[in-house]
């Protein structure tokens, strides 16, 4: 069965393009436009992996990571963070909150795909 990915991004252009790219690589993709909607989608669909932006309305990526870690059904789901911020403290902050990976914008899809495969493999092994 193909992995199901929840993509959370408030910019529609990027959300739709990444969705198409992931679907071309045979992933099943569900989407949300902010952290709150993403959290609800995660609880409903229990995806294999989440890709989330950090700076979004309602619940930001950091809060989302906290909510995931606190939720018994979501705490094992790997969350990859994408952000325009490349400062070490931002990356460390996200990783401390349990992110499975951090990708600095702009990125090329091949790098995102590498992180997806790595996170899914690690999660399967654990």
């Amino acid at each position: 069965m193909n992995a199901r990915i929840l993509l959370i991004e408030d910019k529609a252009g990027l959300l739709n393009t990444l969705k198409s790219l992931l679907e071309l690589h045979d992933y099943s993709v569900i989407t949300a436009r902010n952290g709150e909607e993403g959290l609800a989608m995660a609880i409903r669909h229990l995806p294999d992996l989440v890709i989330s932006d950090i700076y979004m309305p309602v619940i930001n990526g950091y809060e989302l990571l906290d909510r995931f870690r606190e939720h018994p059904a979501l705490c094992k789901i790997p969350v990859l963070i994408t952000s325009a911020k490349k400062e070490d403290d931002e990356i460390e902050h996200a990783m401390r909150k349990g992110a499975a990976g951090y990708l600095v914008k702009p990125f090329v899809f091949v790098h995102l795909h590498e992180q997806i495969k790595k996170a899914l493999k690690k999660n399967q092994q654990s």
Partner: protein
Amino acid sequence: MDSTHTSKSSTLLSNASNILAITAHEFKTPLTTIASIVDLLSIKLQADRYMNPFYEEQLSRITSEIFSLNNMLDEMLTINNIMSGNFEAKKELLYVEEQILPLKEQFRSLTDDHKTLQITMSGTPCKILANSGQLTRIFTNLFSNAFKFSRKNAPTVHLSYQEKALVITVSDDGIGIPPEDLPHLFQPYYRGSNTNGIAGTGLGLTIVKTFVTANDGEITVSSEPDKGTVFTLAFRYPDTYQ
């Protein structure tokens, strides 16, 4: 009256600095969207068997320009942080070659003619006290310039571990810098009079100079038009500080 003006100017500058930082970061999402659209087009052209060397080259050029634009944004952000006094100062003891070696790969993949940075060393390696991120930025900017301007030979970097200091030279055989430009080289937005048509913001060397100084180092430049340029950096070892 004067203090009110100073306070207002300072608030305006701070607001302008924040607006610039927010705007530069906001640009990065559309850049990611464009890069992703290029990836999507490339995959679809391959899948539909329409891809050919011409399309491949043009798509690769778009991606390359996206990352050039991103580098310009990063330079603007760094200068903005420097001007507002907001940049990292955490220093640690480190070996400079450990900062430089990963960059060798980065620059190899970015050049069309597969030139590789030539790294040589002399003396016994010693640690210096510096900020790792700032050192990486210093060398990224210097190597980027060296690759941009070099002609026949690959740029070289030599690390000379001398008695009291590490002296690093970064050399290229490029177009050189006219003597009248040398005194202004590290000023923000200053670009050499012979760099028309060559991409750049004029901020890279200002960042280099600021970060070298912030790490208690010194930088000098010597250059000859049509022969090349040598940047020399010196960082004293921590046990020689007085």
